[in-house]
């Protein structure tokens, strides 16, 4: 905590020093050790070292892929560095921010900060209630002092000083020999801000911890026109907090009514989405009234303590598949993943498990604006669907879905399948007759889908409140200048009054000397204006 007087030992922990260098008492009681450890842990230096470690420990997390951010990237890292990656994993370097060693730093810092701040807060509370310190005997020892004489009596000097020292806490005293003393102090807000700032940091740490305990996050794709209900099975990926179970999911549901996108057509940024959004109709609970929301990037839907976000969009081409007997065995949109965002060339997989004796599978490429590239290859030139084309590669055999292992919907496992061949370029409505009479595939059209995220984090608002409080505390700590001023007025033999003024700044600040001097001169000027009431030789 930034204060001149802050020593390495926090106040309030002034336990007697454990005996040292005494050969007859080498053993320290358990309590003594505990005290010693506590004092070390709660010293400001330890708190600073821990804060520093928290920062240094965060560095590897910014350089290596993290599972919490992208499992995919971590998997790729393992493939690229097969020797190094397992070793890094042993040190939790792919889960830095949830690793035991990072948690250790975090918890030690929490304890250290608590031990540092609470005694400071108590001491400050007492200081706020205490009176300003008595006027010292020798004011000339202060960093700033001034002496002058005036015709006004001591009582009037103190009165005038009191009027000038607005917003100070003031104590006056009568001293022997008819002298009057005044002690003033101001700027308590600095230490208040200091304590507030550190308490707010503690609250922020608590809020972050509570969030990872009570919150959850889930990702999913929803095709335009389809609905979503907030249950575990509706998610493609779900990351619950430690204390979250299925019953805790809020019972909201929504339908994606319409999706809109606009794309930049010219210049360097051609193909980049200028904006995209979706209209939702939603219910906070099954029996709640239906409401509408315009979902866009930067404009999430808040429902029942959860936030629904629009992350991205893509195409879901629709296919109808018939088997060898001519029965329709598949008829639905299939979300494709965009390879890149400037022309939305998208890849997807169609799995038809119920095709009859043998299962069917297809890998497919969707080109929203197909055109012939320079080397004769078909490429997409724009993300808008100007000339949508699909090309398929067909497989027949066993999809491998029945052995209980979970499969990615974006990957076709062709180990037990044989290739049927490649389709011609299909435009909407076109049908590909599969070789060997295995059936047909019709590219019936396409729809948009949106990728979404649902977040429920009860600590968002408390965390924001703590952070805002920290800023306010910080401002007070950095900009309030605590200072003390003293005035002593004593009658002298010649009938005039000798006035001593002194000032002490608790922070370094060249301007305060100037301020004390201004106070001294204004006090003198004010007293000079005072009409003489006694027989003194007035100017």
């Amino acid at each position, binding site marked *: 905590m930034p204060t001149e007087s802050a020593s390495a030992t926090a106040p309030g922990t002034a336990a007697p020093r454990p005996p040292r260098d005494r050969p007859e008492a080498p053993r320290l009681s358990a309590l003594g050790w505990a005290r010693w450890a506590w004092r070390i842990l709660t010293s400001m230096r330890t708190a600073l070292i821990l804060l520093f470690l928290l920062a240094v420990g965060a560095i590897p997390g910014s350089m290596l892929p993290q599972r919490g951010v992208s499992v995919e990237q971590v998997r790729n890292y393992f493939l690229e560095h097969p020797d190094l990656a397992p070793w890094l994993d042993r040190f939790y370097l792919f889960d830095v921010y949830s690793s035991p060693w990072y948690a250790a730093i975090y918890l030690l810092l929490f304890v250290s900060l608590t031990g540092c701040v609470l005694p400071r807060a108590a001491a400050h509370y007492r200081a706020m209630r205490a009176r300003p310190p008595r006027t010292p005997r020798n004011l000339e020892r202060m960093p700033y002092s001034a002496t002058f004489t005036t015709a006004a009596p001591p009582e009037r000097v103190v009165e005038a000083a009191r009027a000038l020292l607005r917003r100070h806490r003031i104590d006056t005293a009568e001293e022997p020999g008819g002298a009057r003393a005044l002690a003033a102090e101001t700027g308590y807000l600095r230490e208040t801000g200091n304590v507030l700032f550190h308490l707010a940091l503690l609250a922020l740490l608590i809020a972050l911890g509570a969030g990872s305990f009570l919150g959850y996050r889930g990702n999913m794709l929803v095709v335009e026109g389809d609905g979503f209900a907030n249950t575990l099975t509706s998610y493609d990926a779900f990351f619950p907090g430690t204390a979250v179970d299925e019953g805790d999911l809020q019972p909201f549901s929504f339908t994606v009514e319409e999706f809109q996108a606009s794309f930049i057509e010219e210049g360097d940024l051609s193909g980049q989405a200028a904006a995209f959004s979706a209209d939702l109709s939603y219910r906070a609970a099954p029996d709640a009234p239906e409401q509408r929301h315009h979902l866009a990037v930067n404009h999430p839907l808040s429902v029942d303590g959860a936030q629904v976000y629009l992350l991205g969009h893509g195409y879901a081409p629709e296919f109808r598949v018939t088997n060898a007997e001519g029965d329709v065995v598949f008829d639905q949109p299939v979300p494709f993943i965009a390879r890149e965002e400037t022309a939305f060339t998208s890849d997807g997989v169609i799995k038809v498990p119920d095709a009859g004796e043998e299962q069917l599978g297809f890998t497919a490429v969707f080109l929203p604006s197909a055109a012939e590239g320079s080397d004769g290859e078909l490429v997409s030139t724009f993300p808008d669907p100007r000339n949508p084309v699909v090309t398929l590669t067909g497989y027949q055999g066993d999809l491998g879905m029945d052995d209980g292992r979970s499969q990615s919907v974006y990957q076709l496992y062709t180990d037990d399948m044989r290739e049927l061949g490649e389709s011609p370029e299909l435009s909407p409505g076109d049908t590909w007759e599969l070789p060997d009479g295995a059936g047909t595939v019709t590219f019936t059209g396409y729809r948009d889908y949106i990728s979404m995220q649902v977040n429920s984090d009860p600590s968002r608002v408390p965390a924001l409140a703590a952070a805002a409080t920290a*800023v306010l505390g*910080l401002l007070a700590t950095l900009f309030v200048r605590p200072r003390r001023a003293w005035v002593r007025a004593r009658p002298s033999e010649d009938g005039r009054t000798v006035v001593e003024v002194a000032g002490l700044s608790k922070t370094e600040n060249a301007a305060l000397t100037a301020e004390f001097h201004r106070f*001294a001169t204004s006090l003198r000027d004010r007293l000079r204006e005072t009409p003489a009431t006694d027989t003194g030789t007035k100017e």
Partner: protein
Amino acid sequence: MEHTLAAETAVDTNLAAVSDSLIIAMIVAYAIALFLFAVEAAYGRRRRLRANRLMPAGAAAARGAAEPAAVGAAGSAGAAGSGAAPGTGGMADLDAEDDMRVRMRREEPEPSAAQHVVGRIALVVTALGLLLNAGQIATRGMAADRWPWGNMFEFVVAICLCSVAAFLYAAIRYQARFLGTFVLLPVLVLLGIAARWLYSEAGPVIPALHSYWIAIHVSAAIIATGGFMVAGAGAIAYLMARRTEIRRAAGERVSGVAAKLPDSELLDRVSHRFIVLAFPLWTFAIIAGAVWADEAWGRFWGWDPKEVWSFITWVAYAAYLHARATAGWRGSKATWIGLIGFGCLLFNFFAVNYLFSGLHSYA
């Protein structure tokens, strides 16, 4: 389903061209100012500075510097040229009638800096450069019809604007004109890098940046960076001046620009002052970023590389503030911690965008 072509792609090419030519104009203005400041630093004569918030009042008041200094200096507050004596712990009769005597426990060294008439011209040229800089940013924003910080080039230009503005504030408010060379040199290097390698045409930005938070979060970060830049310039000047003082104390003769620097104590104060001003803004920028991230990305803190490094920068500057308030750490040690913070800031700004993949990628 509704797909449309963006209407706002229309970039006003005339304005964009004006904006581009203003880049050259402002680089030229800053370069001239830098040259003039360098002349002042090398050939100026050391002269006393008026007292102000960062500079000790006693000495200035002593000489009866009665004209009201910009900051309301001490001496001028007294009615009739009252003030303190220049000598150490000295006393002086100030007002015959009231016998006012002032005593100060510690007489601070008199602040002085190399000054030359070209310094004033340099200040005017810098102000002109600042206007051109602001004009460049405004025209670019109007040309693309959006808030004009959406890519690296625009950030660098905006940071230069804020650095120069912070420097002018220091020069006017704290008479810290002596920092001119130290601020304009990195500003010109940054502008050179921006114009040569980072330049991109005025145009629209990705949807995630379509938010009023860009005005809040990015502006706060940029202004704070400008303040940290002046603080960093002051820190480097401090280290140079400190070395000069140590060599002088050892009996060596020091010449050149280093010999003409102001007192190291004063440089330390200027540097500290700007960190004190920039640190709360940086804190606010991080919080505003968290609020925006909560709105745009669905979490307020996700350990994105940019977030991690802004946190590291924050910790480094927090450590600086603690160190400077701790006995035994003030001076060079604390200054080095502050410079480490500045290094983290620059790393966060440049390296994080190019080395790591994260959500803050707009290069």
